[in-house]
Structure formats: structure tokens, C-alpha cells
């Protein structure tokens, strides 16, 4: 007999409810919605690619030409961006081409892809571009002459960088993109002095860059290592590095509050490096929230005002005197706060499906309405009230959505430090979601960077983390977080930033979120300890196994493993969109989340380890000795204790009936009742039928009485 219940599994209740009521008020939903909303800022990029002859020489450590590398990078960028918001646009403009595109007023500037949402055709075009000129001699005058852009222009002509920038500017202006959106020119080149032979052009290029800046268009430089000038010995590695200060620094605009200089310059010697650089810039750095960082709530919390600076100055001598005297003299510390920004640096990437109208392949909008189950009428919010169910007996606690929101909120947004703890306090299981990152926001409050830098230094020196209360906005729930200091890490080889300075924000679980399976409840204790020798042998074999292979990585983000599902989806969708036959996805090649070939070499260690283990048979290990039930032999029905009751006593049926509990009795009890009264037949009856028979019998009896 199964327990009488409408068995809804405990843990799944939330999930079920959410399935039923899509717009249910589960708190977590609100939060995620907020995160996405912030990411809606439009971001447009024009890749301005140098296609002068030097670009067709191999780059740095690679066999590929700089031009080929750039094309591949842009192709990958398009493939990725194509799934993002259709409001983000990408264009590709070549400068230094032999031909000019029809729309260009000036020569040697070729608009390869107009600024628009990435398309399958665009990706195809970039693919074709990267295959151009394979096996041809780039120094031949007719190199790529038959390509769309006519190959590189004549070396003697002045580099048309000015026109390139002008053209990008003009494209941004004429495509109708909002002045508020982010507009960037990504300049790909390997020539650090493009205008050396034509110094008269320098000023013009500079002016063009400044005009771009004035219009809010930002230029970012992705440079590949240059070749040594003139002598054409491509085989010898470049002796000089790309020197930004020779020319390009004049074009790069910096925002003194937000950025730092190197941030705009992205040198690369290999495809991989260039890809990393591009990836770093391909996400818009948007802050989820700009928040006060409250080191001390201070007197404000107590209702006093501490803000008036003149008042501050007046009290300063006193305060200092107090500080030097025993600490009890200063009862209430001042409020100390600066401004920070919260960003997401790591989060799972997904592409989500949408619903289309099969007839037209257009996206459909979902409209949900409430329907009365009894009458079938459509209801509006005024007809409906909301509740939460309590217990198993249909008790209802009425609570409106607005009230639920109110309960969820904490108050003013901010990061309020509650105290400092040793770094070792943070346990590896204190993790419920991906982390945030915190960086000072000088643009909202001057002095924030100094304060954050000092705090970072202090925490690193003291090996401490801070615990804080994070409230992202006035509607969001409070979270306890650990702020883990992160020092800046610079790549020693190329000087690029690997880790930015700031604080990792680890969202801590609450007690409500933690579960455990302790030994004894569901976990079996080991059988009686075996002799040490076989355990030692097992451990030694395990040790050989775990040290047999190793992936050398500096941190847990440097493994080079791509998401196989995402890669497969990219490939499938591209094939479908372009009407190609089979996608190019090959599990053995494109899924690199699988054991590497080296795993074969450790076959022996694996076998050696497993041969030490007991056979895979089910054993019946002892349960932990806690008042274990003696199985078997126990009578099904306990004998009631007490001298007056020696045999099984019949249930108080009239009372059970009067309490409406007949339905709760067990089938054997119901049957016993009926048998005792000679009511039948009872075999092959469902419980509901038995209940009905019992109720009828009881009602008949009560009438007689």
C-alpha cells in the first residue's frame, strides 16, 4: 500500500510551479531579468583592415599571413555575434586595396561588408576572403588582382588610412545607428609607420581620428608584428616590435576616467593571441550596477548627519585627538564609502531558441491570459488573488505579488562590508552561482580608485577577504558575499593584462541552500577495515594513476576547452542558414571536452588501479549501529500494550466517521470492518469502493442507534 498522498516530490515543487505559472513570482527570476536588461546597450563595430602588401606576409610566429589571420578572426567574431542581439552591427572595410567600392568617394577604400547585423552571407564572404591568395606570391604585381577588392594597391601610393577612417565614420553616421550606442573602429594592421613615406598625410589622418572621437567613435588598434622594411626576407623574424608610439598613439583616444592606455592596444604574434585579444574586446564591458561601497555605515545609520564638510573640518582636531586617545573615546565611526561598479566577467554562454510561426518563419509573441477553470471566462488581475499553500490540508496564505516583491527587497543598493576574515575561511562549497567582479568607479566618485587600491593592498598583505551584504538594486534580495582581493596579473611575455585588479564577488549560500549527506544517512559505513596492505596497495595504484597525466595550467580558466554543444550548434545553424548540406562538426575533432590522446598512455595505470578494487558485486555492508530495526519476525500489527488490551482492538469507527477520516484508514482495516459485519463482496474492490461501502454501513448503523 502506498502512502495516501498526492505525491509531489518536495524539492521539485518550485520547478513544477514555475512550469505551471510561467510568470510566477519566484524571486530568482527577477534577478536574472535584471541582468539581461543591463546588457541591452547596442554595440557596433567596423573592422578597418589594412590590405596593403605587407599584410600578406606571414605574421610573427605563424605561417599564416596577417591578412588571413585577420579574416579568420573576423569570421569567428561574426559567427559568435550572429546569435547575439540583432541590434549589434558589424562591418568590414579594407584600406589599401587596388579597387574602391562604388559607394566610396575615395580610392583604395573598399567596403567589404556594410555595417549590419551579421548574416550567413557575411560569414561566407569572410571565409572566402581568408582563402584568398593561398600559394600565390604576394610580391607579384598581379597578386589577387582578380579578387573583389583587386588585391593590394601599388606600394608607391600613400596609405589611405585617412580615407578609411573617414569612411568608417561616415558609415556609422549614415547607417542610422544611435548616437548613444557604442561605436568602435577596430583597426587591424602590421605596419607601425604607415605614412613614413608620406609625412604630409599624418596630420590629415590625425584630424580624421579626432573627428571620429568627437563623434563618439572609438578607435581600437589590433596590431600584428611588423616585418622589417623593404628587403623582403620574410623568413627572418621581425627584429623590431610594433611601436605604437611611432604613429598610432596619435589616433587612440582615451577616456581619462575609465580607461588606461594599454587597454586599446592589442599586439599579437599568433592567431591564438589575436583571437584572445579580440575576444577580450568583443564583449562590451557593461556594469550591472554602480553601487556605493560602504566600508562603514557610520553615524548616518544612527540618524545623524555627517556629511556637511564644513562641520567635518570643525570637528577634525577633536576627532584626531579622540583617535589618539583610547578607542572607547570614539563611539561612532564616520561613514566611509566610495563608488564601485559590478560586472560579470564569467558566465555560461548559451544560445536560446525562440518560437516561430511555421507559416512565415517569423517570431511569435506569447500572450498569456488567466482562465477561470470553472466557467472558462478570461480573468484580469482584479478577478484573481494570489496565495501560497501551507501544509497538506489546503490552508491558504493570501499574499499579493506586490507584497512578495516588498518582502524580497532589502533597501538601499550597495555593497556594505560586514567584516574581514582570513582567506582560508572561504570553503570550496560556498558557491551557488557564477561570481561578479568589483572595480572602483572613479567616474561617479573621485577618490574611489585610491581607496580601492589601498584596500586591495591591505587585504592582500593581511591575507584577508571581506564579507559584505550585496544589494544590487532597490528591488533585489540581499546576498551575503565574500570579496576576494585580486591583484593585477600581467603576462610577462607580451605585457598584456591577464587578471585585472579588483575584487571577486563570491555569492555565499545561506543555511537554507546547504544540504549534506552525512555518513549513516544514506551513506554506508565501510565494511570492517581490511588489512592495511591491500588498502596501501590501492592507494599506491591510485597515486600512480592521478600523477600519470597532468594538464599544466596556471588557473582554472586556462584549459583551452571549448563548449562542444555551442560549437555544434554554431556549425549546425550555419549550415542550415546557408543551405549547406552537412555541418562541418566532427565529434572527434571539434569536441575537445574529452580525454586527450595521452589518456591511452595511462591505460596501464588505470587497469592496475581497478584491478586492486573489490569486484563489482553488491554486498550488504552493515548499517551503522543505531537502534537498527530488526527486520523480519516483527509482527505486522503491534500488540497494544497494557493489561486491558490483549488482542487487537477494533477501531472506533463511528468516531472515525464523524471526523471524516474513513478515507484515511488502511485497506486492511476497511476490509476487516466489512468482513466483521458480513458486508461483501470485498475482493477486487478499489479503495474508493471500500470506503464508500464502509461509509454506507456506518451511516446505516448510526440511524439504527
Amino acid at each position: 500500500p502506498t502512502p495516501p498522498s498526492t505525491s509531489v516530490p518536495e524539492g521539485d515543487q518550485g520547478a513544477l510551479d514555475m512550469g505551471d505559472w510561467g510568470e510566477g513570482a519566484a524571486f530568482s527570476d527577477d534577478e536574472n531579468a535584471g541582468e539581461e536588461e543591463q546588457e541591452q546597450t547596442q554595440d557596433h563595430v567596423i573592422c578597418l583592415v589594412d590590405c596593403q602588401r605587407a599584410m600578406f606576409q606571414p605574421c610573427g610566429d605563424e605561417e599564416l599571413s596577417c591578412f588571413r589571420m585577420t579574416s579568420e578572426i573576423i569570421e569567428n567574431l561574426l559567427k559568435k555575434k550572429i546569435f547575439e542581439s540583432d541590434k549589434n552591427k558589424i562591418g568590414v572595410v579594407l584600406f589599401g586595396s587596388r579597387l574602391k567600392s562604388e559607394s566610396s568617394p575615395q580610392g583604395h577604400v573598399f567596403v567589404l561588408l556594410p555595417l549590419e547585423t551579421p548574416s550567413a552571407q557575411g560569414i561566407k564572404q569572410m571565409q572566402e576572403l581568408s582563402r584568398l591568395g593561398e600559394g600565390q606570391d604576394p610580391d607579384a604585381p598581379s597578386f589577387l588582382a582578380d579578387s573583389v577588392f583587386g588585391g593590394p594597391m601599388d606600394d608607391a601610393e600613400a596609405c589611405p588610412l585617412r580615407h578609411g577612417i573617414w569612411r568608417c565614420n561616415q558609415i556609422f553616421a549614415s547607417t542610422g545607428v544611435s548616437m548613444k550606442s557604442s561605436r568602435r573602429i577596430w583597426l587591424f594592421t602590421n605596419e607601425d609607420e604607415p605614412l613614413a613615406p608620406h609625412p604630409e598625410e599624418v596630420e590629415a589622418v590625425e584630424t580624421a581620428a579626432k573627428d571620429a572621437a568627437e563623434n563618439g567613435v572609438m578607435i581600437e588598434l589590433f596590431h600584428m608584428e611588423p616585418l622589417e622594411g623593404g628587403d623582403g626576407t620574410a623568413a627572418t623574424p621581425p627584429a623590431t616590435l610594433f611601436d605604437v608610439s611611432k604613429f598610432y598613439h596619435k589616433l587612440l583616444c582615451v577616456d581619462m576616467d575609465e580607461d588606461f592606455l594599454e587597454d586599446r592596444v592589442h599586439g599579437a604574434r599568433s592567431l591564438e593571441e589575436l583571437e584572445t585579444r579580440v575576444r577580450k574586446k568583443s564583449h562590451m564591458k557593461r556594469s550591472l550596477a554602480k553601487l556605493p561601497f560602504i566600508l562603514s555605515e557610520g553615524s548616518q545609520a544612527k540618524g545623524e548627519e555627517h556629511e556637511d564638510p564644513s562641520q567635518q573640518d570643525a570637528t577634525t582636531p577633536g576627532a584626531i585627538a579622540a583617535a589618539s586617545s583610547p578607542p572607547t573615546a570614539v563611539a561612532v565611526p564616520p561613514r566611509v564609502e566610495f563608488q564601485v561598479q559590478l560586472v560579470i566577467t564569467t558566465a555560461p554562454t548559451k544560445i536560446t531558441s525562440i518560437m516561430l510561426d511555421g507559416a512565415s518563419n517569423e517570431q511569435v509573441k506569447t500572450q498569456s491570459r488567466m482562465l477561470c477553470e470553472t466557467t472558462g471566462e478570461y480573468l484580469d488581475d482584479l478577478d484573481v488573488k494570489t496565495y501560497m499553500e501551507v501544509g497538506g490540508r489546503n490552508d491558504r496564505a493570501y499574499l499579493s505579488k506586490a507584497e512578495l516583491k516588498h518582502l524580497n527587497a532589502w533597501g538601499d543598493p550597495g555593497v556594505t562590508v560586514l567584516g574581514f576574515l582570513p582567506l582560508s575561511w572561504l570553503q570550496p562549497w560556498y558557491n551557488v552561482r557564477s561570481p561578479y567582479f568589483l572595480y572602483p568607479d572613479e567616474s561617479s566618485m573621485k577618490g574611489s580608485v585610491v581607496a580601492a587600491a589601498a584596500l586591495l593592498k591591505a587585504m592582500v598583505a593581511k591575507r584577508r577577504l571581506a564579507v559584505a551584504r550585496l544589494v544590487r538594486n532597490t528591488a533585489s534580495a540581499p546576498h551575503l558575499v565574500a570579496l576576494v582581493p585580486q591583484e593585477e596579473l600581467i603576462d610577462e611575455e607580451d605585457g598584456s593584462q591577464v587578471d585585472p585588479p579588483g575584487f571577486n564577488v563570491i555569492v555565499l549560500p545561506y543555511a537554507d541552500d546547504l544540504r549534506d549527506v552525512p555518513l549513516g544517512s544514506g551513506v554506508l559505513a565501510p565494511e570492517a577495515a581490511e588489512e592495511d596492505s591491500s588498502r596501501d596497495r590501492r592507494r599506491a595504484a591510485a597515486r600512480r594513476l592521478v600523477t600519470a597525466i597532468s594538464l599544466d595550467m596556471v588557473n582554472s580558466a586556462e584549459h583551452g576547452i571549448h563548449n562542444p554543444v555551442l560549437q555544434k550548434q554554431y556549425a549546425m545553424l550555419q549550415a542550415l542558414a546557408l543551405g549547406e548540406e552537412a555541418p562541418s562538426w566532427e565529434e572527434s575533432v571539434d569536441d575537445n571536452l574529452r580525454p586527450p590522446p595521452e589518456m591511452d598512455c595511462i591505460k596501464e595505470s588505470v587497469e592496475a588501479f581497478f584491478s586492486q578494487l573489490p569486484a563489482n558485486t553488491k554486498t550488504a555492508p552493515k548499517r551503522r549501529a543505531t537502534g537498527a530495526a530488526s527486520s523480519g519476525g516483527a509482527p505486522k500489527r503491534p500488540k497494544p500494550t497494557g493489561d486491558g488490551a490483549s488482542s487487537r482492538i477494533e477501531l472506533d469507527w463511528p468516531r472515525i466517521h464523524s471526523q471524516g477520516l474513513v478515507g484515511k484508514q488502511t485497506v486492511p482495516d476497511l476490509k476487516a470492518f466489512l468482513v466483521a459485519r458480513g458486508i461483501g463482496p470485498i475482493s477486487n474492490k478499489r479503495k474508493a469502493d471500500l470506503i464508500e461501502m464502509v461509509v454506507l454501513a456506518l451511516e446505516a448503523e448510526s440511524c439504527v442507534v
Partner: protein
Amino acid sequence: RRPKGCLGVSSSRATADSRAMSKEAIVFVIDVSQSMGVPTPGGDRTRLAEAVEGINLLIQSKMLQSKQHEVGVVLCGTEGTSNELAVAGQYDHITVLAQLDRPSMALTTALETEAVPSEASSDIIDGLVIGVLMLSQRTMNKKYLRSVYLVTAAENRIESVGDMDSIIDQLHKLEASLFVVGINFSMTSARQARGRAVLAAGDASKESVELGDMEIADAPADKDETVKEGNEKMLASVVEAAGKGAVLSGEDLVELFTQLQCRSVRATKNKTVLCIGSQQLDVLVFSRSKRTTAASLKKERKTYYDPADPKSAGVKMDRAYRNPKNPEVEVMSESLVKGYRYGTAYVPISEEHSLAMKIESERATLTLVNFTRRTAIQHRHFLGETKCVIPAEDSARSWEGLGALVHAMEQTDRAALVRYVARKNSDPQLCALFPDTSSSYPRFLLQQLPFEEDLRGFTFPSFEAAPAARQPSAEQVSAMMAVVDTMEINGKDFRPEALYNPVMQRLRKTILARVQDEAAPLPDIDPRVRAYMEQSPAVQRNAASALESVHQLFKFTKVEKTTGRKRKHFWSDVVAEGAASEAHDAGSGATDGNGLGPSGTSPAQPPPPPPAPTTVGSVKPIEDFLAMLLQVDRVEDAVRSMTKRIREFVTEGANPAYYRKALGCLETLRKGCLGNSESDAFNKFLEDTVKREYSQGPHANFWDRVVERKVTLISNEEDCAVDVSAEQADQFIRQEEAIEDAAPTQKAEPAEASDDDLFDDIE
């Protein structure tokens, strides 16, 4: 209802088991005899009333925890008798108030009204017999966590001592816990003095309250031991013999269930296979840390609800799909297709393709991909909830295998990278597996790591390389160190394990209040919650002087949001500024860099005594133009250069911003020409270039602005040297207006650009 097996065959059984185990059956046996009617010291309520409050809190908390929990109540010492064993004067004065069943709020109300002190008395052991019988009848051979609470002052003589053995036997068979809630017991008051640390952990404590914690108050070798003391000893020995349970005080009971607490969710263990090379180990995976969220609100139709019929007044959601281009017609669900956005296009996906896009798998698996150093796995890369990998039940092979691996990885400080597939056909994740050192048995922690695609790799300005003004001084750093030191808190108290979700706490309180009173106000945040969610006054006091010195040493100024455009800095400027040793002006970076260009100095970077420009630059054309006009020999150059610049702005800039700039230039040009006897040149430019070339075609927008600003030909009223009449000049732009009126209205220009911007350059 969830269809069976949708979690995958492998996991469904394990799930069912652990869930069913969390169902609780609790029987209260409450003494309502005279001794319970005694008022509590200092209170105006009876002992019984206080005990009922505690019991009701417990029942309510069980109701909030789960719909499955069941409660039964036996009252002992009632005037009447109502129990199934009551035969011939046996088990008199014992009333079964509620059979073991799911409780409702009605039960708590019934307890308040029915459980009142009476004159009658009965043997509490008889009550216990009834209670245990109820428990066994209902739950025998089913999966329940069972407990019996006996609430008594133990002042009546206990007669049926002989029943004790059978009760204990029965409790053992049921694996039930027995809690004796002793009212005014001497032993519990002694224990209270020692503090109740064992109770602090809420529900879990029930198991952990060990008998060792009980002390039978050393009854002084007193001969005239009272009835109560004897009873207390006897009950304590029953609890001890029962093996599970404890003796609690009435205060304990209240305190235990007014504790901040959470819904106890048992971890769901999913069967998974750990694959190493070609070998496999059976393991279980459960969530160690997982965000708990509130259940969502349900809907009922107002005034239609009948409490007798839980299904009444139901509201269901009806979903309709509409194509925005044809919103009148509902798109039927059978014609809906799943698809993806691909740039501007949508790609419909057939069921078959949809499957092909997945990476299929047979079952839940953990596949070893590689090993690495443990220290390479950093907390800041953990992407989601924390999971644990433990040996499969009943498998010695799994136990020993996992044990050896955990040991070896701990010794060698290794972590494993694994491919984790949580269920059949679910998307594989990249995870790290490392020994869980907190566990008393061998197990791993499992944390999801980012793929390459998941890293955004943002860079932020270096603190070290910041300008000196933004570097903290040594003094500032040491002030911060003092703050870090003085604001240190105790990590033993501040642990997630002891900190409850404030939102859930408040929600539980609200629900309990609302289930009884629909209009109950929303409760405030519990002060005990505030205590850990806010800066503690003690910490503040301790750090006061350190914070004061930080306050003195750091200057913060709020930046007011400026609406105007920020000045742009160029890297070359910054570099030049940085090289302060050179006494050169800001502009030197540019001129030094490219030598002497034939076009001379850049107008973009005016040095302090500005040398007259020789051409009109594009950055500050109006300034340049006006400066050139001051030099008589450059007037013609200035006009020519200016017209060239305007042409460039219009044709190459070709956007509203440039049009504005060009218009400003045009107006300045007009004034300049008028004042320098170049009116013909202006008229010619306006007529031949501006009007002829731009009034139609791609730059018509610019011409519209010219008309709008009424920039027309210079007439002979303004300059007698020209032969354009005022009417002609008027007509020159009038014609266009007429045409324009007929034409469809132009697109409004972006709102954010104000006309003031036009003259930014001049100022």
C-alpha cells in the same frame, strides 16, 4: 504532474527513496491534568497554554516545511474519554484529539480550545501507549521519520510502569524518537544553566541531542523523594532506553521552534558513472549548495473559493501565440516551430535537427579528461551550484575506489578535470573534481568551470600603473590595514551554515500570519536576521578610530553627471603630458613626431600664442577661419579653404553631426565674406555647390537645414557690390520650402543633439 522517468531511468529510484524519507510523523501526547493548569512563574498563563504555544509553533513549522508531514494529538487527563482502547474503565480520561494526519491550521486552533486543564487525571503512560499505537498503526512498514512528544509536568503518580518495556520495544521497532517535554523538571533546569548549544542547530538537533547531555539532577540522597522526582527519573530512563530522543524543557520547545530555520530539504542523490579510461565506478551525485527559492504564488478566482473544495476557484494560464505582423490571428500551437535567431534571419529547426544539435549520451556520467594541480582550480571560476560525488550505496568497489582516489589526490594535491553529463542527453559541462576535506567519508566536490566561450576577459586599468595622483600613499595603505585588522569578525559565528536567508525567514513569518489572518500586516525583518545582515555595532566601535583615520586620509568627491560632451584625450597628449621633463606644450607630441609637414602646425592643438593657421582644419574650422581672416593676405585662402572644408563635411561626413558643423561653417563663411568683400564668392559657392549639388540627392538633409536657418544669398541690401536683390535672395530658399511642404515630412533628427553643440568649437 511530472511524468515518471523523465529524470532518466537511472536516477528516478534514488530520488524517490530520499524524498519519501523526509516525510515525518509526529505524535503529541499532552498532559492536560491539573498540574498543567498551574500558572508559570512570572507569567499569567498556565503551563499548558505555554506548552501549547510551543507545540503549535512546531506544527506550523512542519506545515511550512512540507505538505507531507503528519501530526497526531493525544490529550491525557481530559474529562471525557475517547480512544480506541477505552474498554471497561481502562484508558479513561484519554482523548484522541487528532488522528495522525496532515495538519491544518484548524488543528492548532483546536489545540488552543480543547487542550485546557481539567480536574480529571490519568496515567500519562496510558497516553503514551495510545500515542505509540497511533504511530504504529499509521506508519508501520512505511517510510516515515517518526517521533513522539510527551508533554507533561509528571506530577501524577504513574501506575502502569509495567507497560514501559512494551512501549520501548515498540519505539525501537518503529525507529521512533521519544522526546519528553518536561514542565518544570529539575533535570532540564539544571541543563538549561549549562546552555543549550545542542539545540541551536534547529531541526537537525533532534538527532544530535544525545543522551549524554542529559543529567539526571543529582537527587541528594534524600529519602522522601517526591512523586515528581521519581517520575522524572523514570521518564528519563525511558528516553534512554528508547535510544533516540531527549528530555527537553518547555522553554526548549518554544525556543527550538521559534529558531530561525529553513525548510529541510534532503539532498537528492543521482546515480552517475565515473569513467576513467575504459573503467567505471558507480557513484552518486548530490547538490551540496543550491539556491533555494520561494515557491511561486498560486492564483484563485476571487469570491469563487469554497474551502471545502480545494479545486474550486481554480485559475489556469492560457497561452496564445501571435505573429506581431498579423496580431489579429492566433497562431495555433501545431503550426509553431522552434527556431533560432541567426543575424537578422530566423532559422527554423525541425525536431530532427534539434536532436542533431545536442550531444547525446546514454546516462549520467563523469568522464575523466585530465588531472591538474589543485591550486590551479580557483574559486573565482566556479560557475554554479556545488555538487558532491559520493560512493554508490551497497558498492564496496565504489567505496574503496573513491576512497583510494580521494586519498591519492589529497596526498598529491591534484584536481581532476571531468566532463559531467548530469542526465541522459543533457549538455556536457566542464567540471573540476577535488577531494572534499570536510567530509568524514571519502568524497569529491564537483564545481563547474568556464569554457573558453564563457570568459569575457575584461581588462581594467592597472592600479600600479595609475598616475601618481591615483596611487594610495603608504599612510593610506596602513590606515586601510588598520581597518582590516580592527573589523575582523569571528569566522566561527559568521558561517553560511548558521546564516538563514532573510527573505525566506520573513516570508515564512508572513505566511504563518496570513494563513490565520488574511489582513495581517507584513512582519518586520527579524532583529536576529538584522544582526548578521548589518554591520555590528561592536565591529564599528572596535574599528572606530581606524575608520576615522581613513575618513581623514581619503578624499572623496561625488562627480555630478555632466550633460555636456567630455573633452577627449588622446594618447599622444597623455604621453606628452607624462613626459613633464620636456617643457614643451601639449601639441609638441604631434609636431615632434612627424617632423615639419608642409601644411605647418596643426590647428587641432593650439599652442599658447596661437600662430595663425594657414588652412581651415576640420576640428575647429570656425576658429581657424576667423583667425585667417585677421590676416589680410590670407582672406582668399581662408574662403577657399573653408568652402573646401564645408564640402568635405557634407560629402564625406554625411551625417547630422557633420551637417550641423558644415552649417555653422556656412553661416560663419557668410559673415566673413560679407565683412571682407567676398560676397560674390559666397554667393557663387552657395548657388553652384550648396544648392545645385546638395538640394537633391543624398545630402538633401543638409540643404533642408540651410533653408531652415535661412542662410541665403547675400543681397544688394547687405552688400551693394552684388547684384542679387532681396527678393531674389528670399526666393532662393523660398522655392525649396514650397517643394518641401509637398514632400513627405523629413525624419526628425536625433533628439539628443542640441543646437548648442554647434558653437562648442567657438567657445
